[in-house]
């Protein structure tokens, strides 16, 4: 099936509909389909683009926008995909520890798909910046709405992993949230180390 045919048959819309409103049906669709859906990687990549766009809409970046859109977009996309792989591995490992046989490929697809609700951060930001009522802070509301969407994404992942592995919500929650927690810790550690190295190098070159 070609790319255009895949777009035209609108089967992808079923996945997205179930992702937003019917996670049980989504887990069934994932089970019936191929274990790994490469097209799902498009969601973290688009999310990276939308995060950059919403940041630039909020901050009026100027020339920095071009750097964000080139280097920033590439780095953020790669980083998000890598984090997803990391979270998938950790979740699978945790599920194995709970005596549940993990389906790594499908977990990876679910985590990628769960980025879809987070794409709404851009329309929300554009809306907030456009209406801009007095004494309001669009940045704050945008961050809040982004946090709510992230929580919604996590809920979708937890529910779908739960239905897919036919386990309890608590076990699924533990596997996903613990993995996310470790991923965030690892990212923070890398960021702190990179900042120290960069600071050292730049201070030596001044």
């Amino acid at each position: 099936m070609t790319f255009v045919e895949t777009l035209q048959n609108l089967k992808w819309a079923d996945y997205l509909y179930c992702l937003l409103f019917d996670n049980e049906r989504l887990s069934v669709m994932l089970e019936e389909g191929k274990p790994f859906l490469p097209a799902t990687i498009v969601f973290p990549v688009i999310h990276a683009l939308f995060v950059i766009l919403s940041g630039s809409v909020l901050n009026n970046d100027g020339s920095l926008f071009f750097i964000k859109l080139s280097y920033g977009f590439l780095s953020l996309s790669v980083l998000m995909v890598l984090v997803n792989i990391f979270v998938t591995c950790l979740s699978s490992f945790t599920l194995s520890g709970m005596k549940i046989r993990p389906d790594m490929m499908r977990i990876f697809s679910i985590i990628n798909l769960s980025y879809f609700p987070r794409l709404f951060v851009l329309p929300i930001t554009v809306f907030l910046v456009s209406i801009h009522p007095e004494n309001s802070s669009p940045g704050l509301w945008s961050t809040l709405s982004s946090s709510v969407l992230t929580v919604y994404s996590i809920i979708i992942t937890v529910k779908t992993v739960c239905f897919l592995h036919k386990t309890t919500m608590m076990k699924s929650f533990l596997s996903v949230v613990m993995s996310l927690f470790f991923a965030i810790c690892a990212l923070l550690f890398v960021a702190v180390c990179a900042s120290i190295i960069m600071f050292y190098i730049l201070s030596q070159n001044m």
Partner: protein
Amino acid sequence: MDKNRQLLTVIVLFLALTAILSIVRISISMNNSGAKNNLGFPDNSPGIGVIQIYGPITTSGESGAFSQSGGSDAIVEKLDQMQNDPKIKAVVIRINSPGGTVAATQEIFRKITEMRQQNIPVVASMSDLAASGGYYVASACSYIFANQGTITGSIGVIISSPNFKDLFEKYGISMNVIKSGRYKDILSSSRELEDDERELLQSVIDNTYRQFLKDVSLGRNMPIDEFSDYADGRIFSGSQALEYRLVDEIGTYSDSIKKAKELARLEENAPVYLESTSPFDQFFKSLEGKISSFDTPAALLNHSLVEYRYVQ
């Protein structure tokens, strides 16, 4: 399910439309804020080009895994691009160099002279050091700025090679040399320099020194007699260089940008097209600087070139 599919299609189209709208919005706000474009992205307003000549001048220069070569080839290529770029009306050359090899320095000199002949003003801005070959390059420019404490001058030529004869004898090392002519291994590090060889090398040095004087005279529009007395390899501070008319004015990099705009009859807010590209490049360059700043012993031993170079 068809209704749901339609709903999701509308949502996806809505998201795509929002992305397009946000890009339009960002573009408009960039135009309104008058963001200056100095990051290598397309801009057509006339402005000043800036080129940096940092470190020793050689033909190929140092190049790393992440950055382009910084040698004279790359500098001449960049100057050539600026010469053919209709939006570049003047060029500022920022120099922080002790000089370098003769041919590399002369290639940059010729290129700058060619640009001046095409009525493109070229302003030199000396940083910490613009000595020997660094000054040679500056002398080609239409106008030279130096800081008061800039080290410049050092007009002269040098060639050197280590002599390990005693060391080799001590450790019983000898070289097997098969050569086609008696001067083929001139400057060999395994033996003393003969008198006739010294004479031969001196003639080469004298000849290249005369080329230096001639080019400085041409670039500065000043007779050789006027500066030949102190063109003996001595260095000058920026203030002394101004006294001897080796530079035109004491000033900073910003002053040189202003002067270039004035010479090119550009407005004060005309854009400055910096050579340096992005923070990533600068970061990787700084990393390479850390790694490549240590000369290996082998590199030091191979150092026997005729150079316009200030040796500290």
